[in-house]
């Protein structure tokens, strides 16, 4: 019921919100309240999940902290709002959250008619399938799934890709659609479905939480492009720029070899590019142009590390997920992560 109510409340906010309140600049609002309100997943290991002390850990929640570090110089000045797949958009539209970092696929309609701006891609993903190999020994390709019951979460691009993929391959399937992440997982684990489909990163994260992770196999096919990224409301270019360039700064820092450990030391570097991005040039405007302090990149990297560190710590080799960098490697190393010049 909660999600249903949130949907209605979101609309109610849209109906009742006084015209004056929403038009103020998000940066001023955020500074006035003293924290960034960030929408994250209800609990996806590696991307955003609370640890046993209740601290949010994950790739997406770290991005929220990076934005807080850029604005306040302190990565802890962030509050998290958990959102499921259906309530995330109303939460952002209604102004309940300042930014959404929740494995959200960048699509044209979301960018336009929903009234959002995607600030870039923090994770290049693709949709896949997972099956229980112990129960279905002969299956090793998604093309063998004709007739299968497939668990999927509602309100996602996943649901649409699934329909497209089975139609394109002339296969039948039986969608079992749930609203919440936990309900979907429970149904898959109980054997209600033969296969589970979502972004591959999500499948790996989910597999860790199942009773017997080794029984479950992610099939090799990737059936869609899922560029996941943080997003903000349309109509506030300054806030859009801050979030966008925070992401680029993280990527650029990795490219320049600036890490959480050496960022203070790097301030004294002779490399003009490093000096520029860290705001150490005389008369630097690297922060002023965004309405931030000039050493904002220093604070971001000191707070959460660079893009590569965030990746490895949460979902890469240093984490239980052990996802390879793949497409998310820097462009200089054969991947797609590429930041425009910070100058």
């Amino acid at each position, binding site marked *: 019921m909660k999600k249903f109510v949130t949907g209605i409340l979101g*609309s109610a906010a849209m109906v009742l919100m006084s015209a004056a309140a929403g038009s103020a600049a998000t940066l001023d609002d955020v500074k006035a309240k003293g924290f960034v309100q960030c929408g994250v997943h209800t609990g996806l290991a590696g991307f955003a999940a609370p640890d046993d002390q209740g601290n949010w850990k994950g790739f997406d929640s770290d991005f929220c902290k990076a934005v807080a570090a850029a604005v306040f110089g302190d990565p802890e000045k962030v509050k998290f709002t958990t959102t499921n797949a259906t309530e995330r958009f109303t939460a952002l539209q209604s102004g309940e959250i300042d930014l959404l970092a929740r494995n959200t696929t960048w699509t044209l309609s979301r960018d*336009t008619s929903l*009234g959002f701006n995607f600030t870039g891609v923090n994770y290049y993903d693709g949709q896949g399938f997972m099956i229980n190999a112990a129960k279905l020994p002969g299956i090793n390709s998604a093309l063998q799934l004709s007739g299968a019951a497939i668990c999927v979460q509602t*309100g996602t691009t996943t649901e649409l890709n699934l329909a497209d993929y089975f139609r394109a391959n002339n296969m039948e399937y039986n969608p*079992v659609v749930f609203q919440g992440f936990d309900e979907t997982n429970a149904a898959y684990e109980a054997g209600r479905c033969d296969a589970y489909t979502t972004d591959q990163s999500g499948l790996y994260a989910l597999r860790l939480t199942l009773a017997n992770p080794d029984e479950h196999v992610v099939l090799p096919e990737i059936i869609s492009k899922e560029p996941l990224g943080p997003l903000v409301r349309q109509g506030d270019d300054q806030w859009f720029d801050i979030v966008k360039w925070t992401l680029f700064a993280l990527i650029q820092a990795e490219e320049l070899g600036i890490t959480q450990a050496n960022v203070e030391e790097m301030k004294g570097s002779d490399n003009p590019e490093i000096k520029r991005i860290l705001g150490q040039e005389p008369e630097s405007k690297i922060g002023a142009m965004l309405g931030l302090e000039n050493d904002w990149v220093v604070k971001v990297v000191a707070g959460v590390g660079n893009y590569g560190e965030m990746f490895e710590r949460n979902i890469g080799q240093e984490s239980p997920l052990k996802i390879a960098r793949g497409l998310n490697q820097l462009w200089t190393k054969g991947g797609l992560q590429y930041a425009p010049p910070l100058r």
Partner: protein
Amino acid sequence: MASTEVLRADTSARVSWKNDPRIRGIIFQVLVVVILAAAVYWIWGNTVDNLRRANISSGFGFLDRRSGFDVSQSLIQYTADSSFRSALIVGLLNTILVAVCGIITATIIGFLVGVGRLSGNWLIAKICTVYVEVFRNIPPLLVIFFWYLGVLSVLPGPRDSLELPFSSYLNNRGFFLPKAIWEESAWLIPAALVVGIVVAFILNRWAYRRQMQTGQPFPRLATSLGLIIGLPLLVTLLLGIPVSFEFPQKGTFNLSGGFQVKPEFLSLYLALSFYTASFIAEIVRAGILGVNRGQTEASYALGLRSGLTLRLVVIPQAMRIIIPPLTSQYLNLTKNSSLAVFVGYPDLVQIGQTTMNQTGQAIEVVAIWMVIYLGLSLSTAAFMNWFNAKMALVER
């Protein structure tokens, strides 16, 4: 009323219009209407303003766009190529399906349990009491989870389905029955059913009139049942049973073919039926206890046997007490069916949510939900009011 008029007539010469209660009444009513209209105007303008400023497109144009998602259970032809409008209609029909099935079952269970609680048999009465107290005091969502996670999902998987009589199977993917495939001549069977109903109806009216005039009773129930069941049966036999069955077959993943009832539907339907039945049972009990004992005694004194007393004296009077609260239980059941989202049954709310997310038209979808639920509730209420008026005391 009369006294105030007298008062007013007495004092009207001296009292100014400001103190005239009638004029005051009118002024306040006009004021309330103006405030209400202003509020609606403000909310409307504000919404349009906010939507425009947030760059969110609005309007119902999205209904004609291709939906792009599939639905597991549909009463009409629907594919991912159909429009959002069709998707919402599929959801609405699924809501109506579960509500109608639930209402019928809940009424039957409710009447049995309600009468059972009044039974002289100690065991039956206690079992019925326990049933009512258990289901009435559990939130409906838990009852749904009980059926979905506690009963249906612990059934064996498709590979070792439970075999039931008549080639039907039960597993954690649902209930599988042989599907009847009718030959072309089979349309005569429903036709015979319609004829049977019409003839039975006419016969009943004739029998009623004859009994009123001559006092001669006629075995109405037996002949009606004979006509309604016997006629189609006779036609079926004459046509040489024009039906074949498609049996569920084991496929790679699941049983295929046959007629399937999905666990999502089953759990929601059973939960709503059992939950609402506990309330209906209490309403029925109250209705029967509400009929004065003197009525039964008077009827016995007139020489009516106990069956006839129940049918002609007690039940008609009890129905007058039962029907109004029964209506609100039917409305509750229909509205509770929106809990479907938690077990993945594609009802109006679930499909609406998917639509909302794929299009971002939250306000429009919420408006559609409200209008449809309001419409469903008002039509149920209208039907029950009509039924109530029919059952109400007719004074002669």
